[in-house]
């Protein structure tokens, strides 16, 4: 997995090789990040948080 960076603080984020799009990471800067597919690989974006219709 190429090294990914936190879009909030710019520091590197450790993402395992078998990570899937949709996985969430709590970064040391306090941001919750979501792994997503860009079309050219994986990247990180700020997780938008729980939605009203989420859950079981």
């Amino acid at each position, binding site marked *: 997995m190429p090294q990914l960076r936190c879009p909030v603080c710019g520091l590197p984020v450790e993402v395992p090789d078998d990570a*899937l*799009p*949709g*996985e*969430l990471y709590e970064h040391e800067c306090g941001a919750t990040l*979501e*792994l*997503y*597919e860009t079309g050219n690989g994986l990247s990180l974006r700020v997780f938008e948080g729980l*939605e009203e*219709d*989420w*859950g*079981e």
Partner: protein
Amino acid sequence: MPTALLVYDVARLDEKLLLDRMRRLFDRVELLHLPSAVLEFTSRGGLVGADIAVQRSISFYRAVTSTAALEAQGLRVVNTSHAILVSGDKAVSTGLLVRNRVPVPETLLAYGLESTVKAASLLGYPVVVKPVQGSWGRLLALARDEEELRAIVEHREYMGALYRVQYVQEYVRKPGRDIRATCIGDSVPAAIYRVSGSWITNTARGGRAEPARVTPEMEDLTLRACKALGVEVGGVDIVEHPEKGLLVLEVNAVPEYKNVMRVTGVDVAREIAEYLYGEAKR
């Protein structure tokens, strides 16, 4: 060899465990990450190809709509869009459960403040007021008297049309726990107690999971509840009423099972994967 599609949005431990078990059985498992996906109702050919799909979206609306789109392309999806839709609405699912003679707590619907007060007086306080759509125990309210009920309903009347449907239910004095039973096809491989000092026992709200023995009565009730809603893989919430016995609260059509696996030792993810594999080979 069958192929499968895992439809999801957030890759939780539940989804990763299921993916791992599916990869052990299926020739190929594709991922459909809904936040990045484009789905077509009218197929342009080969957009989505698999023998079976499993719906694991944490979002109710994404789960229903993406399943409907995949079904339109001829894909077999577990659970079906109809099962997810009816399970996601407490009023609709309660109606189907009652029609199919599945015991539920006494429940009334009301659409205005005064009619809700009347409904509560018919049940007797305390009553539980629930949104007809909602998850993880959100916005459940306990009204111990008319004053509290009026405050709850008045707040909800400002929250939009969905919250003006008042689902009013008898408060069951349960023994500090309720039951989550897992249904997969025609079997109930595991169940847990969700133990809490609070009247809300969802593990998402701090309830502690403990293993429960699947009794014949629990198994029968779980299977009948899932069948009533057309749910193949489901989590059935059951409450122990001190006089009426086991009653079904609701059926979850995209159930979480990591806590069930952790405390019971039953590999629910593997059992779901095996069910999907069997269905795909049909």
